[in-house]
């Protein structure tokens, strides 16, 4: 059962089914006062249509355009990243690997001071003649054979590889009987990062390892590091002595 007044509004809008239309016409014939309702509906509809105009809103529209631009930009970025994510990841991996390889190639003759410091674990208590020790520890370290270590007593010895390079490490006691000296020879290294401060003596650089002074020099592509509880100047003098035949 339809509300007669609502039917009049539906009639004014032309949105009645054939059955409803028929019912509306019957009601209009039976109740003449419904004619007024129909007139009101038509008048109000016409008044709204003619009085309420939509005006152009350029400023507001331009803001909408701005929002759409932002949306497009964000879509493009997202789309690009998601589409080429595999390529970006691949490129990044390549850069990391290439960087690693390049770093190894460029720095092939450079060691880090922390790597050298790691060689200074407690020396073994073995004691022997310095030349014998050299031969035992590193028969292939030619440079070591040429060092003059006659004034020193070897208190410990060790050898192995550091960063893929052979090394020899000797604990030494000087002619006066004072220990606390260590000599490290590393093959195929011509620089130790962190131990490269000038000493004022040609061929010798200095630095600190395990809070001890040390000096280093290069002989035939080998780096020699001498460290101990001595001043840098004393260590340089000892190094010079080791180089003299």
């Amino acid at each position, binding site marked *: 059962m339809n509300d007669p007044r609502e039917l009049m509004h539906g009639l004014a809008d032309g949105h009645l089914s054939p059955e409803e239309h028929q019912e509306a016409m019957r009601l209009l014939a039976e109740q003449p006062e419904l004619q007024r309702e129909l007139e009101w509906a038509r008048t109000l509809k016409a*008044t709204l249509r003619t009085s309420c105009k939509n005006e*152009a*809103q350029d400023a507001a*529209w331009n803001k*909408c355009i701005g929002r759409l631009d932002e949306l497009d930009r964000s879509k493009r970025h997202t789309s690009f990243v998601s589409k080429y994510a595999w390529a970006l990841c691949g490129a990044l991996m390549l850069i990391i690997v290439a960087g690693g390889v390049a770093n190894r190639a460029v720095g092939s003759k450079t060691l880090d001071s922390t790597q050298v410091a790691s060689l200074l674990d407690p020396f073994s208590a073995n004691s022997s003649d310095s030349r014998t020790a050299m031969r035992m520890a590193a028969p292939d370290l030619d440079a070591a054979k040429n060092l003059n270590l006659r004034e020193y007593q070897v208190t410990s010895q060790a050898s192995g590889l550091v960063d893929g390079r052979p090394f020899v490490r000797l604990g030494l006691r000087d002619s006066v009987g004072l220990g606390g000296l260590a000599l490290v020879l590393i093959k195929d290294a011509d620089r130790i990062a962190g131990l490269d401060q000038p000493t004022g003596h040609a061929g010798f650089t200095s630095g600190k390892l395990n809070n001890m002074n040390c000096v280093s020099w290069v002989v035939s592509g080998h780096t020699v590091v001498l460290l101990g509880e001595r001043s840098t100047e004393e260590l340089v003098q000892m190094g010079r002595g080791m180089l003299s035949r």
Partner: protein
Amino acid sequence: MLFKRVSSHRDRFQREAQAVYPSVYGTALRLTRDREEAEDLSQEAIVRAYEAFDRFDGQNFKAWILRILTNLYINKYRRKKRTGTTASLDDDENLFEPMAPAEESPDRVMFDNLMGAEVEEALSRVPEIFRTAVILSDIEGMTYDEIAEATDVPVGTVRSRIARGRSALRAALERYAIEQGYIKQGTPD
């Protein structure tokens, strides 16, 4: 290729949206009765429509975007209602004015003389859910089916809301005409 596709999609949407934007903004303004809110609401509707443009069936863009706008507005309105800032208006039977007396016919001359701003003011006094139906029907020319879809109610409810909305508008206009001295109370001029 990607940029070209986005650009063509955007161009088509922008052409359609620009043509109906005055209706979008006008409807938003009549619903919210606040310029700033209307701007926000219409902007939001445009953005939502753009995002969903792939799903537009190509039939009636204006009805489609007004549906988006109305949905956005209704959701906002319902949220407000849940927080208690807006009273329920849907079931207020008193809003339906008594049937017009037999001798009281609409004064066409008076209505013709009303300015747009006066009608807009009277419309703004119509309760929200009825106003929404009247705006979509009488100003934007949407069919009952389209309004039913936009407001998510049956067609019968749409017809009822339009009838109630027009009655409320008529009462508001009459009050206005009496206040302005166009007509005397109880005696249509």
